[in-house]
């Protein structure tokens, strides 16, 4: 599903003394089937923009089009069920989306809400729990009696259980151990290919942008600052630094090598790209 923002503005608590304008004149397209990374400094509006993708927040001005659904400031809160089924969001803080008595019921809630039988939904819950790397013995546990990383995994399982077409991930690996981080990122990539999903990822990890995304949107103070491929975005380290953004580890390391005199045709973004370029310069020879 393609997603299109047209002249979108969003203000929290509009018309009160506390009004905060979080988005200003957003014009951007998230192409169907893309893996889009949304990056930007703290408070730049990433989470606010994400919540427009399933009309959890509605624009204060402008329109958001998701597939064939158009959301305007006037859109009523009714009839959003189909949209919410198609667009699954993993929130920045997992606790905010856990609510049931048990892990099993929590994950089964989505499928049941969208028409699955209880038995089928519970079966899906067990499958999803395994997919996120948790032990089946947690199924009967309260989702609040879990470690931070375990809660994160349950929240992810709950969203995957709805089999959404658009998977929206707000820093989905914060708090996960590195192995869990890698497993989850690989799983999202695999699901995307198998089910032809559109993925939207908010992250501060530039390595994840380099490794997985094919489209990048940079936000700054509620506005779109730049869009492009990872290759394009990471070509300009100085611009990134001005926007409080870093480089993938490899790109930063390649710059150290360049300072010494090693040259690259194109700045490498991933370890494998760098290793390939170096091996090439070494004539592929084993030293």
């Amino acid at each position, binding site marked *: 599903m393609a997603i299109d923002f047209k002249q979108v503005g969003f203000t*929290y*608590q509009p018309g009160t003394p*506390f009004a*905060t304008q979080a988005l200003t004149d957003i014009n951007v397209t998230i192409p169907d089937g893309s893996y889009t990374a949304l990056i930007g*400094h*703290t*408070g730049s509006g*990433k*989470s606010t923009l994400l919540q427009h993708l399933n009309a959890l927040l509605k624009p204060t001005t402008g329109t958001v089009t998701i597939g064939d659904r158009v959301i305007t400031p006037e859109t009523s809160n009714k009839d959003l069920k189909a949209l919410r089924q198609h667009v699954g969001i993993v929130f*920045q*803080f997992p*606790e*905010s989306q856990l609510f049931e008595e048990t892990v099993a019921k929590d994950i089964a809630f989505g499928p049941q809400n969208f028409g699955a039988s209880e038995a089928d939904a519970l079966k899906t819950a067990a499958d999803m729990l395994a997919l996120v790397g948790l032990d089946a013995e947690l199924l009967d546990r*309260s989702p609040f*009696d*879990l*470690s*931070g*990383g*375990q809660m*994160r*995994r349950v929240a992810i399982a709950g969203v995957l259980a709805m089999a959404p077409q658009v998977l929206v991930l*707000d*820093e989905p690996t*914060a*708090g*996960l*151990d*590195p*192995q*869990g*981080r890698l497993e989850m990122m690989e799983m999202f990539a695999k699901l995307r290919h198998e089910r032809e999903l559109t993925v939207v990822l908010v992250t*501060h990890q*530039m390595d994840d942008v380099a490794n997985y995304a094919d489209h990048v949107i940079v936000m700054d103070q509620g506005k779109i600052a730049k869009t492009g491929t990872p290759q394009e975005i990471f070509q300009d380290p100085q611009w990134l630094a001005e926007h*409080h*953004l*870093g480089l993938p*580890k*490899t790109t930063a*390391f390649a710059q*150290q*090598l360049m300072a*010494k*005199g*090693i040259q690259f045709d194109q700045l490498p973004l991933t*370890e*494998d790209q*760098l*290793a*390939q370029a*170096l*091996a090439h*310069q*070494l*004539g*592929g020879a*084993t*030293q």
Partner: protein
Amino acid sequence: MSQIINVEHLNYRYPQQDTDALTLTDVSFSVAAGEWVAIVGHNGSGKSTLAKNLNGLLAPVSGQITIDGQVLSEDTVWDIRRKIGMVFQNPDNQFVGATVADDVAFSLENQGIPRETMLKRVDEALAQVDMSAFKTREPARLSGGQKQRVALAGMIAARPKILILDEATSMLDPEGRAEVLATIRQMKADSDLTVLSITHDIDEAASANRVLVVNDGQLVEEGTPAEIFEHGPALIKMGLDMPYPERLKAALKRQGVTVPTTYLTEKGMADWLWQLISNK
């Protein structure tokens, strides 16, 4: 140096658990005043549970915890909590003030500090985390990273003897994270602050004097960061990432390049590569 934290044979089980398996098993360690200790381990290994035992939020099944010379008990728990500043994994769980400034000030209450000094400290702490512009905002209505900054400001203002950070920088960008680590280093330089930081971040672990590794509720390893990082790929099992030079070495191996087996820092790796290429 004197031991400010001493944990002996700590066993802990969550009361709501119906099994008799322990969440923490026979955990013993001590921390010297002024030391910075990183606690690492995979998800669910027991790190947060350990932290909550240290300030008496959870009560052990058995074992003894001594903080700054006081044995932790019902009688001493309030004294001890005043000495320990803790930043929780989810900042939403610790906000109490109606505004950001109130919230930071709250961490200073019961310390008998004059109001003037208090306000000054609040302002300084907010400036340190770059949140001065948000003083009058409601903490719940902030972005994820802003919330973490406010939670940290509370502890910066409180100036506790012991600072426990439970993945307190997980939602910050690398720049924000580096700033926080620099602030903590500064606090350590200014006072005899002791830091326990629970983290999955290799740079944060590298900032510590010592690293403790928790696995399935047990302390399984301890050493300096350099000692721990020598474990290479086994670091992944400890809930840490491989340092970048190790990852690059693995990628080079996949390309058929022979790489040194000793641990190289980033600089060491760059020097080695430059040698290799310029001598070709």
